[in-house]
């Protein structure tokens, strides 16, 4: 080791400590590389998996909300708990216009909804009838993108339904269907429509049970007048939907209730939470294992250098200074580990974040993805959070792991330490 006293004369003490610590690292080249690689390995794994998490949560939210629910909805206060025809927003068109002019809102689509009996010839099935404003809904819903045959609501009396429902009814493009339901007052609601388009989302509960018609014909058939059941709202950023909800709710009339996607799709929010929780169990386990390896490396270091430390103490170096030097050594190892981990992570994730990973090829994954409303391609996303979180936790673990053995130095008696065999 370089004589620290000479360095001390040469320059600033802090810089000297770093220089000495750095040199000390390379006295046990293999150990340093091993410790740093262990950290790098852990940082790499955690960062890569966090970038996939970040990428997939955004994609889950976008895919799930764009299908039907939207980022926000305005409803009659009672409709969410009791989706009955009579709980409708009476001033549908006026409210739509009003929300469309709010800042932060990209698109608004009014919808009417009712469960009803759909018949074709002798066959009848129950379905959710959804009345939509074609242009407005296309601006925010991905359901039209799942068109598998025909056209999306080309005429006033067109119907757009799931392939499974069409198969159950035994209808194809061009066939007539009859919808029979109940109005809000309990009267008979009826409307005729022509099957002009079919959709196939891969989600059986949608494909089997949803039928869209033009909102005007539904409002006429169900005696709704100008009323709507949901105003589906797309905001600029789904992550800030709940903030926007609070602002809109404050300004909205008394009989309008706003809901954000966390409330509309509680299972989505909780799927994300569960995924986060199980991933973080893994991260903690990794951190503990790596921190224990660091403790071990520093136990060995302190043990081997007992004589050296004894000498430093004997010539007047304060124990805390030695602990500090070991701390700097730990930070240096950590820094090498971070470089290894982050470089690897960026090298792996950066190309993938551009081209994405096709998950639909994995057997069985397609159905799973459809069920969980996940997209076929996953784009891992790199951001500051992903790249800093695991290194910072690792730094805490490393310092802890290094300081536990380093504190032994404070209990060392210079004379005994010097006597210790090398």
């Amino acid at each position, binding site marked *: 080791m370089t004589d620290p006293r000479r360095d001390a004369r040469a320059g600033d003490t802090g810089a000297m400590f770093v220089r000495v610590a750095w040199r000390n690292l390379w006295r046990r080249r293999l150990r340093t590389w091993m410790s740093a690689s262990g950290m790098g390995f852990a940082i790499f794994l955690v960062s890569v998996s966090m970038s996939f998490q970040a990428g997939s949560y955004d994609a889950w939210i976008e895919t799930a909300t764009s299908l039907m629910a939207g980022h926000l909805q305005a409803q009659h206060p009672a409709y969410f708990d009791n989706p009955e025809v009579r709980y409708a927003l009476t001033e549908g068109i006026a409210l739509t216009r009003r929300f469309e002019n709010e800042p932060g809102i990209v698109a608004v689509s009014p919808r009417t909804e009712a469960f009803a009996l759909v018949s074709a010839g002798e066959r009848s099935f129950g379905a959710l009838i959804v009345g939509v404003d074609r242009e407005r809904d296309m601006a925010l819903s991905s359901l039209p993108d799942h068109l598998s045959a025909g056209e999306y609501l080309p005429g006033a009396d067109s119907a757009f339904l799931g392939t499974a429902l069409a198969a159950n009814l035994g209808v194809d493009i061009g066939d007539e269907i009859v919808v029979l339901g109940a109005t809000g007052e309990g009267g008979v609601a009826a409307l005729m429509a022509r099957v002009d388009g079919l959709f196939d989302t891969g989600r059986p509960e949608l494909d089997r049970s949803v039928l869209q018609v033009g909102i005007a014909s539904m409002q006429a058939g169900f005696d709704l007048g100008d009323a709507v059941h949901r105003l589906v709202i797309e905001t600029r950023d789904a992550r800030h939907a709940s903030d926007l909800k609070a602002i809109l709710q404050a300004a909205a009339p008394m009989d309008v209730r706003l809901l954000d996607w966390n409330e509309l799709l509680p299972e989505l929010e909780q799927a994300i939470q569960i995924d986060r929780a199980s991933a973080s169990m893994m991260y903690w386990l990794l951190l503990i294992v790596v921190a224990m390896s660091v403790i071990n490396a520093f136990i060995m270091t302190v*043990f081997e250098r007992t004589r050296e430390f004894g000498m430093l103490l004997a010539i007047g170096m304060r124990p805390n200074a030695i602990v500090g030097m070991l701390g700097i050594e730990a930070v240096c190892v950590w820094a090498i580990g971070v470089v290894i981990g982050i470089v690897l992570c960026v090298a792996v994730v950066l190309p993938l974040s551009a081209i994405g990973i096709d998950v639909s090829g994995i057997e069985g994954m397609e159905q799973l993805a459809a069920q969980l409303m996940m997209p076929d391609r996953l784009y891992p996303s790199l951001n500051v959070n992903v790249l800093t979180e695991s290194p910072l936790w690792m730094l805490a673990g490393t310092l802890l792991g290094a300081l536990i053995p380093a504190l032994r130095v404070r209990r060392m008696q210079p004379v005994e330490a010097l006597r210790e065999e090398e």
Partner: protein
Amino acid sequence: MTRETGPPGGDPENSRSEFSNAPARGRNRIPVRLLLQFSWRNLWRHRRRNGILLSAIAVAVAGVLLLNTLLRGMQYDMMNTAIDNLTGHVKVLAPGYLDDPGIERGFDTPPDWQQVLDPDAVEGWAARIRVPAVIMSERETRGIQLVGIDPEQESISFLHTAAIEGERLTGRGDRRLVIGQRLADDLATLPGRRLVLVTQGADGRTREAGFRIAGIYRAEMSLVESAFVFTGRDALQDLLGTGDVTEISVRLADAPREAETMAALATAFEDLDVLSWRQLEPQAATMVAFADTSIYIYFLIVMGALVFGLVNTLVTAVMERIRELGMLRALGMRPRSVVAQVVTESSLIMATGVAIGIAVAGGVFSLVADGIDLTAFDDSLASFGMRPIFVPVVEATDVVLVAVMSLALGLVASFYPARRAVKIKPLEALQRR
């Protein structure tokens, strides 16, 4: 080194019997017993450091095992829920029923068909009619699956254990309904009230009839509660004008002999499809298959991080003993005996760490074995097909797998340190100071 002459920290006799499967490479030159004794004592020369290493291994092994039991628990739960929800392990269906369910895809059951089943392999079976229908209360209309059952056969499905408000169906001729709580809420109805059912008869004509509600069941998933409406099978056959059923569901006994049962059923029902739950519930099957793979992923990640620390310690242990090993070499110890010693040391640490890890995992497991209440995550778990309270499951093969893989990893990790040890030249090592 001052500690070299210190007392051996453990009884070599015990250690020998515990780890008698250590490599026998040195047998020609050093007796296995001596080898173990050497290694055991070496480990005790650095208690603190080897103690930490042991703890790290134990934490890693215990962590991997516990994560795995949670995953296995979810896997079993998903499988059981899928099977409980009227699927069973194996189902007989008419071709095309899944794409277009209806009574016209029904079939009649030959009188003695159940003779093809091995009574030991089968827990039970149920023949049902399951057709789509529309259900109406005074106020609301919903689309549902109308299921005609023989209540005595339903010991194989969730209905048997489900809590019921009101009465259960008394027999297959019972012409009343049992509906789910969620559906009852949607329809704003109660036991004793009447509902109107609209469905399609065997002749293709629409049937509409009033039914009285006998009871309301609760299921673990609200999706189930809003989907299935039960009535007596004979009563439903009367309504539809048929003697057919649309499905036979078979639940297997504890050790599922699925392929065998499927083959037997295929002979009894030649024109029909015999499908396993994996085909009927592909989503649950995917999750179950994923759980099988993930133990390797967990292992590789955690033990991968651990191996760096292990190599570090082993190399240090070799480098510290350069003089000692050099002397042994000078006295005539063969290089392979040196290798054997390093490998034995590594394996001893690993084996001890794994044993402690398994013990710790067992201890923690016994605390949570009764189940962890995940009610806070209820909605989401239900969307995955899981129950709110789920029970971690230990599979002996997983524990063995982790133990074997860890020991293999210990061998791999000792490769480089052992090579370092072999490279030591006796003379140089002795001169070194």
